[in-house]
């Protein structure tokens, strides 16, 4: 047996790679052969030099850390609460139930609701010309009505009745410009009874002084007629400022006797402007002279 073979065998012996039979045979050989024994002892010396024992306190600290970690892991893995185990199943069933309820509710709503009878309302923002003034009008919107070109188109049609004049309809427009245009259009033509009535109503009720002035300007050339004068007289208490002054001028210019009682009433009315009162006094004096 060569030295190399002996060393290899000794290595196998020390590393525990010999079978039981081989081990027994090798140990017998060790007892018999001094040379082999010496080789093995040399190797054993080196082999055992690798051994070291960790300090006790290091092991204790390591044990503490390990068991703390193990407890934590065990607790995470096996929670005592049984709810924890069934929770995922509960979540799953809750999700399924929610979907079923949603589908049923959707089907019931779709096939049982009488949506044709539902009245829909639309909020329109109406913007006037002149001083900034915004008002909101709640209008009825027919269910199957065709879409209008503009939102206001659907506003105008419901309020026009068969007995109403087109002028009246136009004077009810939410736009001041539309109303003024309508009044100025009348100026060029002949006034019918219905138009007079519409203009009188607008003169009393229109919130825009510009529209009122346009009406007054329209009526001025026709103020010689009794009908127009009566219209102006009736509207006098409902107007103020420039409009009122203009109307008073027109009435005095046309020497309307019927206007005198109304003028006197305005003269004694505290709400009448001071310069208007002066205008009335001057007009009456001129009229009497």
């Amino acid at each position, binding site marked *: 047996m060569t030295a190399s073979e002996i*060393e*290899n065998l000794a*290595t*196998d012996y020390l*590393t*525990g*790679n010999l079978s039981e039979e081989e081990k027994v045979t090798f140990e017998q050989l060790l007892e018999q052969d001094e040379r082999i024994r010496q080789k093995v002892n*040399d*190797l054993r*010396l*080196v*082999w*055992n*030099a*690798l*051994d*070291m*024992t*960790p*300090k006790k306190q*290091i*092991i204790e*600290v*390591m*044990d503490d*850390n*390990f*068991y703390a*970690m*193990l407890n934590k*892991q*065990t607790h995470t*893995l*096996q929670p005592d609460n049984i709810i924890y185990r069934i929770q995922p199943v509960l979540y799953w069933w809750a999700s399924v139930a929610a979907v079923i309820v949603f589908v049923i509710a959707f089907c019931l709503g779709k096939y049982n609701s009488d949506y044709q009878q539902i009245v829909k309302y639309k909020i329109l923002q109406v913007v006037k010309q002149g001083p900034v003034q915004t008002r909101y009008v709640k209008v009825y919107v027919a269910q199957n009505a065709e879409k209008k070109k503009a939102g206001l188109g659907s506003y105008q049609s419901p309020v026009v009745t068969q007995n109403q004049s087109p002028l009246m309809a136009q004077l009810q427009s939410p736009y001041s410009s539309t109303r003024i245009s309508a009044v100025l259009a009348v100026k060029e033509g002949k006034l019918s009874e219905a138009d007079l009535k519409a203009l009188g109503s607008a003169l009393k009720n229109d919130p825009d002084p510009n529209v009122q002035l346009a009406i007054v300007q329209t009526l001025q050339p026709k103020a010689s007629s009794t009908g127009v004068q009566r219209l102006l007289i009736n509207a006098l208490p409902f107007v103020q400022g420039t409009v009122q002054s203009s109307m008073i001028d027109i009435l005095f210019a046309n020497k309307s006797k019927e206007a005198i009682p109304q003028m006197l009433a305005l003269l004694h009315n505290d709400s009448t402007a001071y310069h208007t009162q002066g205008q009335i006094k001057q007009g009456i004096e001129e009229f009497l002279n």
Partner: protein
Amino acid sequence: MTDEALMICIKNDDLSKVALLYERYKQRLLQYFAYRSFSDRDVSKDLVQQVFLRVIEYRKSFKDEGNFKVWLYAIAANVNRQEIKYQMQRKDSLFAYSEEYSYVMENDDYKIVHQILKKLPEQYGEVLMMSKFWRMKYEEIAALKECSVGVIKTRVYRAMQLLKEAYFKLT
């Protein structure tokens, strides 16, 4: 109970068995990490704990017919590799060896042997540690390193020869 039987219990979520495996392997793991260059007391014990944490985390990946020792070594080697990488990034004083603070010397030659072992080529040093601390047979090392038993035998013989030569030269 064998290591493998215990590991199968752990695989089936009986974590109380981890403690038994820990008691069996803690010392050799400590030695392994000490020789694998992390002989700092805190680092070595933390690495041992990390190994067992991974045993718990990856317990489902243990094959029923597998060899626990080989499987554990693979985890330890992986932990060791990651630690080296981490330490290389940190480049701090943890690389300084301090075995004398952490271990009781079996004999005075411990430091010499450690130095020799560290100077051995990686392939020899590794098989020697696997054999010494993990008490692995040649067949087990061969399976782990994916090479023939003959190759492993040669490496172990050569490692022992180098270790012996260097040892007697220095002492």
